[in-house]
């Protein structure tokens, strides 16, 4: 964290709304991405991200400055999204709304846009098959590039639990991928061979 960010944080802890707005501006992307990958829907992700920031705003007094702010913020976000998913149990994917992704430097052509949409659809379909907590672990690991220790802190789990859940999630994703891409007539169990 840069010194400027530390200052913004300190000001936000003193109830400075402008400082907190700066934090929202800075961290909106990782928070939104986590919500989006967890919920699979642009509008729900927007609502969840707003609520996550509101919860962080309410709890900023209790934030421990020795801890990484992004870990703390994503912890609030992940727990909120997990609760939301558990309550709803209705994973949804709104492909038509997937238009606000980071645009590359050059404006992509229709083919590139279609490819990107298809990739996102494929990934989200895979993620939907994971349990809420496993999904959060995969998102934090591969999009946020968190270490296993950081994931453990974020999701209030032990490092060994994170490791075993990561293994389980990767195996399930690999098996789902095989099921999706193998020729017809050679279907395989989602959970793969028990020997693995």
């Amino acid at each position: 964290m840069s010194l400027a960010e530390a200052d913004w944080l300190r000001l936000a802890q003193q109830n400075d709304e402008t400082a907190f707005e700066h934090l929202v501006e800075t961290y909106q992307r990782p928070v939104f991405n986590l919500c989006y990958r967890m919920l699979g829907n642009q509008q729900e992700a927007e609502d969840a991200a707003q609520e996550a920031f509101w919860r962080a705003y309410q709890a900023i007094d209790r934030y421990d400055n020795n801890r990484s702010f992004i870990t703390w913020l994503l912890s609030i976000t992940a727990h909120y999204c997990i609760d939301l998913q558990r309550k709803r149990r209705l994973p949804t994917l709104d492909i038509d709304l997937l238009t606000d992704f980071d645009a590359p430097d050059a404006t992509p052509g229709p083919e590139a846009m279609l490819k990107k949409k298809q990739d996102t659809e494929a990934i989200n379909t895979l993620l939907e098959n994971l349990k809420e907590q496993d999904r959060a672990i995969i998102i934090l690991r591969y999009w946020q590039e968190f270490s296993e220790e950081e994931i453990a802190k974020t999701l209030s789990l032990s490092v060994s639990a994170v490791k075993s859940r990561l293994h389980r999630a990767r195996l399930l994703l690999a098996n789902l991928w095989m099921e999706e891409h193998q020729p017809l007539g050679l279907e395989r169990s989602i959970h793969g061979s028990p020997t693995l």
Partner: protein
Amino acid sequence: MVHQPYSSWLLDEVKLTPEQKFQLEEHLLTCTECQPVQHAWVSVKKEIKSSPMASPAAGFTTRWKAYLQIRNSVNQKQLAKRWLMGLSLAAVFTLILLVTQIFTSGSAFTLILGISQAQQLVTGLVSQLQNVTWLLFHNSSPWILIVLGVGVASWVAISFIAGSYIIVRARRKVSPNHEN
């Protein structure tokens, strides 16, 4: 065929020694179960890496400011609702107590008599307190009175400051247009 530790090596992203790498490659050449898993996991990982971090639509912070105002207003309403509910509950509880008293004592007259007796008791206690205070002021040394006065004044001042601090803090937290 034994798949461990190769399965873990494939999926746990641990750093392998050159010897372990060689063993894994040897196993993958012959194992028809681990090989497809490895290919599939590599593909999934590639797919994940090519999938960009999603960004919200432009103006997220502005929308958050509006959301903050709405949530603050909802919070204030909820707080007022809780107070109202608390007061209503207290009123209902008192009413239940009164009704119970009337029904158990047999008549409203007994209740009025009880209230009158309680009032007399309170009046007696206040009168005794006045006597004690009068005796204290006339028989004690001025120093004891000064210390007592300073103590009471400090306690009142501390309570007032603490109360004001809590109220100001709560108001600042819920005030949407607060500026430092």
